[in-house]
């Protein structure tokens, strides 16, 4: 199944706002390519765990741990590509 990448990114941003309690933020506030962790959105490792769990549950994909996870979660763009790739595999 081909996933509409734009729609997927939107859904991911919405998921992040809900799951990570990003109060007051809208999907439009989150840049596709901005770093999620450290600088940028300023998420921490606890958020990474929470987001991984939420992504696995929502999309039925298996999210890697450790170093591989860093690349996947670098930005909304990389996350969306990962999910789309995993779903069509």
């Amino acid at each position: 199944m081909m996933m509409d990448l734009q729609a997927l990114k939107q859904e991911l941003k919405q998921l992040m706002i809900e799951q990570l309690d990003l109060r007051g933020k809208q999907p439009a506030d989150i840049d596709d390519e901005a770093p999620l962790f450290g600088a940028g959105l300023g998420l921490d490792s606890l958020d990474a765990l929470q987001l991984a769990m939420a992504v696995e549950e929502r999309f039925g994909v298996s999210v890697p741990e450790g170093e591989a996870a860093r690349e996947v979660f670098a930005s909304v763009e990389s996350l969306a590509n990962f999910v789309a790739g995993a779903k069509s595999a």
Partner: protein
Amino acid sequence: MKQTSPRSELERDSSQSAHSPGRERVAITGVGMVTALGFGARPSFARLCAGERGIRELEGFALPGLRSKFAAQVPSFDAPESYPRSDALAWLAAKEALAEAGFGVGELPRMGLSVGGTTGSLLETEAELKQANGLARAQRFLTHPLSCTVQSLARLLGPFAVGATSCSACSSGALAIVRGAQWVASGRTTLALVGGTDALCHMTLAGFGALGVVDPNPCRPFDVKRAGLSLGEGAGFMVLEAESNARARGAKILGWLAGFAVGAEAHHVTHPEPSGRRAAELMLSALGRAGFSAADVGYINAHGTGTQANDAMETRALEHAFGPELQRIWVSSSKGQLGHTLGAAGAIEAVISLLALEAARVPPSAGLEHAEHPELRFVRERAADCAPGVVLSNSFGFGGLDAVLCLSSDPPSNGIERAGGGEWLVRRSAWVPQSAAPGSNDALHAGAWLERARVLPDATDPFEGLDPERSRRFDRSAAALTRAAEQLGASRSAAEVARGLESEGVLARSGPEGSARGVLGRGLVVGAAYGNVERSLRFLDRLHAAGPKAVAPAEFPQLVPSASAGSVSTYMGLTGPVFSVCDGIKSASLAVESALAMLELGLCSSLWCGAAATRDAVVRELFPSVCPALQLAEGELSVLVELARRTPETEPGALARVVGHGACAGRHDADAIEPWAPPKPTWPAHLFIADLDGSLGELVARSAWARVSQEDLLAGGFRETLGIHALALAAQAISREPSQALILCGDRESAYWVRLEPL
């Protein structure tokens, strides 16, 4: 009946600032322990020394997909019927300690009971949640708060003169020991039974796993290949006794609680502050308080959970604090054999530390093959023969809530250092009232009902005005308390806290001078009968429905009853003693008591004491059936009061001074001859009273306070904030018009009073 001298001493004492002169040293006259290595403190210690590991494959928990199948479970035993497991574990350890100290069950002299824990009887509540549908199944959350262990032990072993429950996450057991020590050192009781307990449960097994901090294999503290912690369960208890009493009755003194330090890191909800500076400072402070220095320490029982973060931080802390002495000082973590026993850990490990002194053997650090820092002198597979003389026991909890205990074989040169006769001021108060919001009374299924509750419009939003990034995981209580805190002082970021610690340059100091000049951060004590019930229910529902892989990792650290205290302290940058007092409906009143205790111990020179009555939807729905006598208010309230030692700096703007405080005689007080009589009011006076069962009203009616204007705090309906609300109202009344105030909160089992006068 003639008034006998104990009563009149109490009255005289209350006219000073409730310190008795002199420094009573705190002896340990009994210990008890139950862990995965079995029953009986000394047989278990022998097995610990032999290197036996109690971490085995988990039994009795159907949790497919758990990160680790290993845990350290207590072997089966005959528990007193219908008591929760955590209380039964506590009972085993507590009665062993009492027996060793020479006290028969039910014939105890005047003795306090101080218990630390994190999950309480959550194991049994979890089982009940699975039984039926609807919100009623969650009732057990409310009928079994953390304070149940004190109630159970009072029934099984007591009565006790005073009971208290403390929570500071993984350092709760150590904190409970400190609170009990304060009673003994101040003369409030000559004896205290102190300790901690925690039974394994689904929530903690799943929660720690979801955080990714659990080793899939038995843990390996301090090993270069360590991969996380192993959970454990158990209980540890000690009898603390005033030296004069122990000597007078010829008790065998096993060792001494020579010193301690309690403080917070103000860094992150789960990550320790990596430099280890705060932890190092606390270790030196505990030593200094006892009159010891680094050169006196023979052994350190580390917190040593086996996680990457803790062991790295703790190693740095040890290096900061002890430097070259580390070549000589033995170090080990007992968690490689007993697992991380959470609320019990600080107490179990205190017992182990005492036994190391007694046996002149230091137990090994099991699971350690290749130390990441081989420059530390780890005890390897078997115990080492060593008479350590002075031992430190570390406990570092979620939210950076830390405690260090210092035990010694020989009596320390000082008593527990007290802030010698200082006066305490109520400096300021802050509150955040929220107006009522419409509630839902439909008895729907819990899940759907919670969803509806979340979309109810808020009249005011406690999160408004808070930094959204730093308050992100807060619940309403934490947000409301932080709003109140911001009215009292400016918040400090983690970076600012770190810079502050560095510039204050404490680490070079140790010894008695060090403790006198040590950095005393501001403390925070929160009265919180429960953790967040709504979130706990949601977490457990997900666990039950979808298994361990589906639970929310970020939610888990917010469920422990100390979570709001930890959250506020991190946001505001508070590094003094930070913890929750979890004594059911008396939590707020006893929060005031323990706040004053922390000040009297000199563990901080200023402290915020607070509680929040917020609209937890589940509590609001269930509470009428659990406690029909009390009306819950519409709306919410959070109150915070600042207490500080009187100095020229703290006097300006202070509202009132504390001229006395203490417990009223109650049913648990074996020495009660007549009911406590409050000292006569002399000026215009106000009485602030929360009389939970009418017995306080009887006391007052027979005294000169009967004619004084009264404010009945129960009428407001904010049961969660009673004692603190009273303190704030009373202090404000005095600042408006010079007068005297008496605050009375409690019931015939236990009640607490505070007297205030103008400066």
